[in-house]
């Protein structure tokens, strides 16, 4: 069974003459153990796609299914719980809470979701792998853009979700770090059986993807 399925999803904003179709009849599935890359330029609808896939927005028509649960049938509270337990978001901007140290970003997850997160040893290994193991007592304002993004990746992975939705995860990284992040996402998919969906315009991530989709003017095609 696919970890994430979008069936005939359309998203429209506005009404009547002002109506804009941002996504049109999207069919998409992400499978555990694979990295799916959704490529598209700014304004193509890829962020809307990501928010609908993560249950943050609801589609105008069509269905979103996470494993065996249809998001359309869930309350807001149930969708929150689903995101907390099964979906990890890696966001492009405002990723971290500015008044929490790197360590506290993970402690916050422990407080709202005490079970099922990475162990201290696994977290330590992850931070070392991302090259941020020495930064646990730093605040986000004390980190570089690349370090911030890597902490955000670790933060999303910490809650050990089945699905990871990443919005431009390599936007602030140099090529060497892009390779590290790409390889990390790839390894997570393979070794930990995660379904990973990355929306990006960064073509450098192509080498780490199992499936590549192109999104343009709200329409998705297999690249």
């Amino acid at each position, binding site marked *: 069974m696919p970890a994430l399925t979008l069936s005939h999803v359309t998203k429209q904003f506005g009404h009547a003459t002002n109506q804009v179709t941002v996504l049109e009849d999207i069919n998409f599935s992400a499978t555990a153990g694979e990295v799916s890359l959704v490529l598209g330029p700014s304004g193509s609808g890829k962020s809307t796609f990501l928010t609908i896939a993560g249950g943050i927005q609801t589609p105008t028509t069509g269905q979103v299914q996470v494993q065996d649960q249809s998001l359309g049938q869930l309350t807001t509270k149930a969708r929150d719980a689903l995101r907390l337990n099964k979906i990890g978001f890696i966001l492009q901007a405002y990723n971290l809470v500015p008044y929490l140290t790197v360590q506290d970003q993970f402690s*916050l997850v422990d407080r709202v979701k005490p079970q099922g997160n990475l162990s201290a040893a696994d977290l330590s290994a992850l931070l070392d792998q991302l090259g941020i193991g020495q930064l646990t007592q730093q*605040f986000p304002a004390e980190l570089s853009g690349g370090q911030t993004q890597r902490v955000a990746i670790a933060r999303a992975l910490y809650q050990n979700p089945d699905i990871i939705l990443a919005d431009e995860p390599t936007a602030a990284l140099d090529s060497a770090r892009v390779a590290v992040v790409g390889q990390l996402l790839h390894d997570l998919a393979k070794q930990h059986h995660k379904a990973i969906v990355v929306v990006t315009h960064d073509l450098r991530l192509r080498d780490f993807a199992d499936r590549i989709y192109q999104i343009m003017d709200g329409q998705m095609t297999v690249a």
Partner: protein
Amino acid sequence: MFLALREIRHEKLRYGLIVGMVVLVSYLVFVLSGLAYGLAQQNTQAISSWGTSKIALNSDANESLSQSLLTTATTDKLALSDHEAYIGQAGVVAKAAGQPKLSAQFVGLQAHQFVARNLKVTSGQRPATARQILVDDSFHDNGYRLGDRVQLNATAGKYTIVGFTHNAKLSVAPVIYGSLGTWRTLSHVTANFKASGVVSNDAHFAPKTAGVQTLTRQQFINKLPGYSAQNTTFTFMIAFLMVIAMVVIAVFLYILTMQKLPNYAVLRAQGIPASVLVKTTISQAMLLVVSGLVIGALLTAATVLALPAGVPMSFNLPLLAGVTVGILLTGVIGALIPVRLILRVDPVSVIGG
């Protein structure tokens, strides 16, 4: 509370300013209510110490003890018991050699009646003769001592201080207790006048004698010159201050929450329940307000210690509790206003592109 504490720790200046604002507001409210209560107390302390429930006055006295005169013909008809006592009140100026002049209220009593018997003497003794007086502690604060011979008004001769009593103030002036004879002398009335009024510790005391009006203790206090106007003024000042404080605190908390919405949107996107964020906001507001109240109360206590003894500041536990709860409620309301924003925060706003 985790998020609330971490944020306060990280943003010390910002939250310090808010706590500072609550400190100033609570300090101002505490001090004002202390002054209001203190002043009210100084109007009525002596009356409270008499332990009276009712007071009978001349019906033409406009409910004022100092304006009332009861003739012996009238008082003979009152059929008084051990529960009643004569009171004579007269405004005087007291002066002893080497001491400042003090404006005071002379209260004439009969030594064997319950008011005189109930007076608490802090030093010395109760007057035993017509030329002896018992005076409020504020005389002592102004340099007067036991044995001082005090001139009352210009023509009434000299009286010896034989004792001091605590909290004896009437209409904000210190009280001098003496005999009814001295009261007659000070009031320039003949022996045909028995007293200014009759007080009773019997709640059912209600003489039907013509020319006599009976008031409850509270009715009498409310009619003290300036008392109601003074209390109303302070009550309105404190009420306006509370309302303004509520608006200011609410605006501050609203702005704070607005600034945090992008962070909250990230947390909502990550599945952190809105209830966690609401609890964080309210607990943070409570923490700030309670901290401000505690510091405000400590500052008020320090102020009380530093103020000269003559400043009429006094605290009443129910009043203080009411003011404290009022400020706390202000904080709760201020924190609840932005809760709607938190519940409606849109996680989509942090996913761009």
